[in-house]
């Protein structure tokens, strides 16, 4: 155990920090729209070898040797100054790794570069109304008609679909095959006739999710990744990514810092709430959970770095439930600190920020959002099944056999 970085890695950190002096941009560049500024800086990050390190240069990445510690240093330092790095969009974060593993050469060349820059935006079409946590039961159909797939059906919980150029999604292409075996992974241009995006307004008032309806929408036959009927396996790779994205320990620590700040700024009995012994103990208890998230993450990181992932399979399975619970604890405590301000509605301008907050209305939003992760990416009950069954060898649920 050694929480210091090696001299080489400290030197690497120095180079990263040196590079980061270039952010924020200055001079004429700083006058550009923020999106362009980010694109410029991200490009420089690629050139410097700090961004998209696992993506080959041929497709627009920086193709660096695998070094998890360097990755972590980059994450820490970029995070500190809020500099743009790897996009965490569905495209860069989920489609690209999938294509790198399963795509044809042509697909890689065509789709990866614009996904990395964000010029081409992607959405994910997995969930359907009838199959929330039960992906294998999906119904959306794609029928091969000559050299085109004809799509029919409905997707739901499609985040950012209203802004996406493309969707990667799962469709049932072999209706006669068994549940898992009849699914294919298709790439769908969203501008095709017969595709309609309808907003799903969230309870907090924002609009991040959508329903997407397909009515005889046609896409080229070649827009398939992997073989016909192999979509389930192809999608697993990105699902693993999604699960890992949830439970960012930096996010947790920041939310806790925000909670402390809130406790300092709110009043109890005429004094700062943070002086109340009960509040102090409650905050310290929450910090126990936050620290557990951080340290369990560090342990998993080390195992990954050592190539010993098998040793941390159990804590990995638990990340999602654990971090969701912890965020809920934070949001609940914050909501209690709000007192009467708990009647306020989130402000319009805050609705798209799922992140840090300092305002009472922002905390009301967080209070409602903290319920989201328990639902997104597999409900808590499903996760508990996974932990019990795969983690501890307990039997699977019985199914009705009618």
């Amino acid at each position, binding site marked *: 155990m050694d929480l210091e970085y090696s001299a080489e890695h400290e030197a690497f950190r120095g180079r990263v920090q040196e590079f980061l002096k270039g952010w924020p941009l200055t001079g004429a560049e700083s006058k550009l729209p923020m999106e362009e500024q980010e694109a410029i800086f991200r490009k420089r990050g690629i050139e410097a070898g700090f961004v998209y390190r696992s993506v080959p240069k041929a497709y627009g990445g920086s193709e660096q040797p695998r070094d998890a510690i360097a990755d972590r240093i980059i994450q820490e330092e970029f995070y500190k100054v809020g500099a743009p790095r790897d996009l965490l969009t569905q495209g860069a974060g989920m489609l690209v790794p999938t294509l790198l593993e399963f795509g044809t050469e042509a697909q890689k060349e065509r789709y990866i570069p614009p996904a990395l820059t964000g010029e081409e935006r992607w959405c994910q079409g997995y969930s359907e109304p009838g199959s929330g946590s*039960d992906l294998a039961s999906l119904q959306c159909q794609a029928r091969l008609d000559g050299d085109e797939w004809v799509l029919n059906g409905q997707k739901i919980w499609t985040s950012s679909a209203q802004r996406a150029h493309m969707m990667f999604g799962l469709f049932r292409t072999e209706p006669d095959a068994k549940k898992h075996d009849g699914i294919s992974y298709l790439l769908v241009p969203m501008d095709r006739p017969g595709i309609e995006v309808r907003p799903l307004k969230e309870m907090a008032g924002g609009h991040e999710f959508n329903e997407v309806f397909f009515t005889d929408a046609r896409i080229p036959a070649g827009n398939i990744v992997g073989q016909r009927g192999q979509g389930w396996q192809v999608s697993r790779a990105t699902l693993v990514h999604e699960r890992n994205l949830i439970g960012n320990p930096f996010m947790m620590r920041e939310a806790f810092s925000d909670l402390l700040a809130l406790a300092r700024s709110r009043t109890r009995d005429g004094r700062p709430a943070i002086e109340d012994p009960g509040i102090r103990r409650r905050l310290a208890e929450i910090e126990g959970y936050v620290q557990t998230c951080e340290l369990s993450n560090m342990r998993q990181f080390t195992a990954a770095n050592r190539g010993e992932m098998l040793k941390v399979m159990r804590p990995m399975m638990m990340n999602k439930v654990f971090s969701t619970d912890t965020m809920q604890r934070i949001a609940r405590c914050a909501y209690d600190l709000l007192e009467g301000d708990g009647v306020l509605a989130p402000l319009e301008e805050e609705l798209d920020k799922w992140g840090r907050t300092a305002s009472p209305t922002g905390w009301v939003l967080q209070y409602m959002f903290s319920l989201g992760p328990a639902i997104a990416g597999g409900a808590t009950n499903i996760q508990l099944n996974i932990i019990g069954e795969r983690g501890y060898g307990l039997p699977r649920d019985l199914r009705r056999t009618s």
Partner: protein
Amino acid sequence: MDFGLSEEQELLQETVRGFAQNECPTTRLRELFDAGTGHDPALWSGLVEMGIAGLIVPEEQGGAGMELLDLALVAELLGEFAVPGPFLGHSLAALGVTLVADPAQREAILPGLADGSQIATVALQESAFGFAPGEWTAKIEGDRVSGTKAIVPSAGQADRFLVGLQGGRLAWVDAKGEGVRIEPVEGVDRTRPISTVHFAGAPASLLGGDEASAWRLLDAASVLLAADAFGAASKLIDLDVAYSLSREQFGQPIAQFQAIKHTIARIATDIEPARALFWYAAHAWDHLPEESARAASVAKAHLTDRAMDAARQSVELHGGYGFTWECEVQMWFKRIMFDRSCLGTPDRHRERTAELGGY
């Protein structure tokens, strides 16, 4: 020795339920919720016609002269159907006047409230933190009131405000008069809109009262909010049951999964027995003065907190759908947020419970 409702009270609940089912079904509620005005003149007229506006106003002033328990039973059902409108503020205003005004003032004010020709509301709490009468700072000088009040329910619909003043006294102010500025605030509960109301030398009649009578008014508010939260939480149990039976996953209704079944059983066990808390608090307000304050705080703290838990669990139980605007759950979730945050959070009421209980 009988701790149950009378036939009249059960009939009252049946009547209000029938009205709400007809006039405020979920489809209508949804329209009002999306519109966000938090008010529907037709709905309010219907309640007025049923005598709800004057339920607790003395018969001499044209009311039904009923008790807080009756009013709380109505509040329960309005919570169950999340009926939008000025019921809460109006009822409390009428109660406050009845509590502290002199006969002439009562005669002047109450008939208009009882027959629904005027809508009134209460302006008490001054910040997110203070709600206790000891923390009220609004002043009256001569017959002019100055001060700022937060979380005033249905201010936009009100013709009159009952305003809490320093020392727990209460004043009666014309909402449309000079020196009154209503600043609407976007509240999370779109069935009961809120405002911050600024009084800058607004003409007022001083009704009287002191900290004790102000607390009595607040205790009634606690009972009504607790009853509303109970009704809302009961509705959530119904929604949970219906959804879990209709929603299929892995080829069977999700109610078939023990985790779902037990979640519902636990929510129900948190809520159903606690119905007795608001009954008792209301009855104590009416008949057991020594128990009244503590019972009100216990009911407000416990019921709004348990209802909030139930709401969070219900959202989770509804999966992704529960997280949407479209899902009915959110309307009751937010109704409960209001009940819990308004006029003293559970923490505040627990501190009072401890104080009054001589802990």
